[in-house]
């Protein structure tokens, strides 16, 4: 059985002013345990909304979402989230941020300290334990945020365009590291992005979403050898990117037209 089941979910976004907008229409999706799934679509297609619904941050009003057979009602430590803009507590140091989640889980103090250090080392922030986020570069902030989420050991990692705010080199570095971490730790990942290359490089499957109202248009299986250092130039990779780009293109154009109107 799939670990995450999204069943005919419909979601209305109600802005503080103006008319409600249908963000998701009849979305169904199944994600297997330990799978890396990318949610790909043009901006405004509701891919982040779908992620927040799975996270339990937004209420499911129509349809159903279940994780391990239990309906999602609220956020929980089984589903860790990483945001595009890091969402680190600016008043806590790198260590303080990571300790916070462990504290909330009721871990004893000595164990907390040890575990925090272990994850600081894992993401390569050794030496920056006592720095405040305002003193870190974007890439380092995202490493800290990733360490904070990984440290309390969620089974599922929800990632909301986590590398979207980083420069191209840092983004590539982080993608490679994320793959490495994911291969070493048994986690299910749902990764929201609008970058086709990123989706193909990272994911086992790419769920392509339509322009608003968001629907799952197709799910594409990715079978490329990611250990190959020349993967970005490999024919299998380039073909997949082309195939998916063609699927996304018309949705992106639709989304643009809607933005303009």
């Amino acid at each position, binding site marked *: 059985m799939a670990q995450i089941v999204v069943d005919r979910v419909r979601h209305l976004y109600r802005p503080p002013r103006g008319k409600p907008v249908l963000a998701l229409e009849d979305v169904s999706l199944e994600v297997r345990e330990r799978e890396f799934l990318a949610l790909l679509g043009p901006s405004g297609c509701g891919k982040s909304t779908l992620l927040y619904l799975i996270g339990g941050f937004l209420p499911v009003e129509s349809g159903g979402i279940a994780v391990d057979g239990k309906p999602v009602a609220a956020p929980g430590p089984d589903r860790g989230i990483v945001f595009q803009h890091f969402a680190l507590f600016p008043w806590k140091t790198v260590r303080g941020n990571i300790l916070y989640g462990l504290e909330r889980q009721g871990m004893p103090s000595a164990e907390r300290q040890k575990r925090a250090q272990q994850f600081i080392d894992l993401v390569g922030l050794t030496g920056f334990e006592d720095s405040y986020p305002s003193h870190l570069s974007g890439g380092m902030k995202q490493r800290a945020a990733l360490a904070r989420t990984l440290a*309390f050991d969620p089974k599922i990692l929800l990632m909301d365009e986590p590398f979207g705010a980083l420069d191209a080199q840092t983004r590539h570095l982080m993608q490679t590291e994320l793959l490495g971490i994911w291969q070493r730790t048994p986690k299910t990942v749902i990764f929201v992005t609008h970058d086709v290359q990123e989706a193909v490089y990272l994911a086992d499957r790419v769920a392509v979403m339509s322009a608003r109202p968001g629907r799952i248009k197709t799910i594409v299986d990715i079978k490329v050898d990611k250990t190959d250092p020349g993967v970005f130039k490999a024919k299998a990779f380039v073909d997949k990117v082309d195939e998916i780009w063609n699927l996304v293109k018309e949705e992106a154009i639709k989304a643009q037209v809607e933005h303009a109107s």
Partner: protein
Amino acid sequence: MTAGLMKMLLRYSPLLILAIGWELVSRLGLVSSDALPSLSAVAAAWIDLVRDGDLVSNGLSSLYRGGAGLALAIVIGGVLGILMARWKPVNVIFGPIVEIFYPVPKTALIPITVIWLGLGDGSKILLIFLGCMIPVTIGAFNGARSAEQALIWSARSMGADRIRILWDVVVPSALPELLNGIRTALALAFILLVASELITAQNGFGYLIGSLGDNGNYDAMYAVVLTVALLGFAADRLYQLLMHEMLIWRH
């Protein structure tokens, strides 16, 4: 350290020039000594006031009133502002009250607080509390409203409950604006304190300024005015140091 001292001397040198100018103007008789006694005469009067204990005893009364009023305003205003930002019913009830009360010149309330609580400490504390609560409440409200959704969600996914989120995320998010509001309140506390004591009091800085003026003891009156000004300045500088310390993560 000496470089820092030099920098500070340089920074406040306009004040030194002003002091010398003051002394010269009254020494040379350009202004009558009744209107502006010389700085040296004021300093001498200040020493007398300290010696006979008048300045200290009146100062302590004022300090108590100002401190109590301000402390109440910080606690109640801070809690109210944060609750207003996070809980709609509280905002519906208190929002309009704060709005109406905001532009009222608080000194206009002096006679009212006297009718309610008499001529003693109570009426001054109430006035300072009412006046100082407004900037504290507004600071806490705006600060708490600026708490980022992603931070709150992150805390929730790590297992924080509502109370935890309020204390661990909303309060620290509100802190920069709240502390700015308190700084405004601190200045306001001095204004309201002296104003209320000038009008109705049997002791305190304001009372001392008034009674010395009435008796034509202008040297001493100036000495008290200067004392209040310097205390206000020192309080603000100290507060800024404290604020810098509390917001060290922003620098």
